[in-house]
């Protein structure tokens, strides 16, 4: 069982959450066709990283908020969680520097 620490509800079983997708993708600013490549990348292209990965999950059986999760795809370890606006990788690097 994976435990995801919801920023609002606290530690919960991952079965309460729904995987939403890659949190590293940024929505293109323009919706016009001149930006097709950016939209193609946003909608279809995904990396398959081995190691740290930022993901969006929704606490669908709880507060229904979106939660950003920093997960190690190799070990399934959940390293950090936060609100969608948080940059968890930067936070983690800050922690490492502080050690």
């Amino acid at each position, binding site marked *: *069982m994976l*435990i995801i620490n919801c920023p*609002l*509800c*606290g*530690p*919960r*079983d991952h*079965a*309460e959450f729904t995987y939403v997708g890659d949190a590293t993708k940024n929505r293109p600013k323009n919706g016009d066709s001149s930006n097709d490549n950016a939209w193609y990348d946003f909608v279809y292209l995904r990396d398959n990283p081995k190691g740290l990965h930022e993901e969006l999950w929704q606490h669908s*059986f*709880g*507060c*229904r*908020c979106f939660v950003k999760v920093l997960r190690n795809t190799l070990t399934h370890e959940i390293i950090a969680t936060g609100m969608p606006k948080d940059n968890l990788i930067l936070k983690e690097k800050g922690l490492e520097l502080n050690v």
Partner: protein
Amino acid sequence: MTEVNTSKNSLRRQSGLAHVINYGQFGNVTLNGPSLFICERHPLTILQLDTNKSKTLTDISNLLNVEFPHTNTCNGDDKRRILWLGPNRWLIVEPEHECLQTLINNEFNSSEVFLTDLSHGKSTVRLRGRNARDVLMKGSGVDWHLNSFGADYCAHTKLFDLAATVDCRDIDVFDIYIARGFAEDFWGTLVDAAAEFGYQVD
């Protein structure tokens, strides 16, 4: 003075569990008696309230005489209770005696307060006794220890694979709100989980 529309109360609420509840003592009841007591709370008025206006919240709080709780907690007394469900979302529960929805709607602008009547859509089960937390542990990964989940805490979680809201009324007293359509299934699972401790259905 607000006029309460009592005509809406003329529809009598039907229990979603009446046909599955068997009263008595079951399971591994010892000479000391059952360590769990289970009953249905019915009929209740259950309203979901959504608003992001803090001034409106304060006014509703004054009207209901209950403060709106913060994250993962609930406020209230034996009669009226408010549970936190999520950001800007609460559940108001009370034994049915007036049309609470009309009472609030008469006072507040409908574009600021969104009320959804869930009274017909929810079933409520009260679980109490010294092994109540052990039963909850079987159904959900929430930390049910007294230090983490004491009186006046609530959790909206997945309990026995069903979406449930659990309100800790007292140290070993829990009100569990479940979707009415799944109430029968939930009841069956709950009494199965309670059987090893011995339980009494009131």
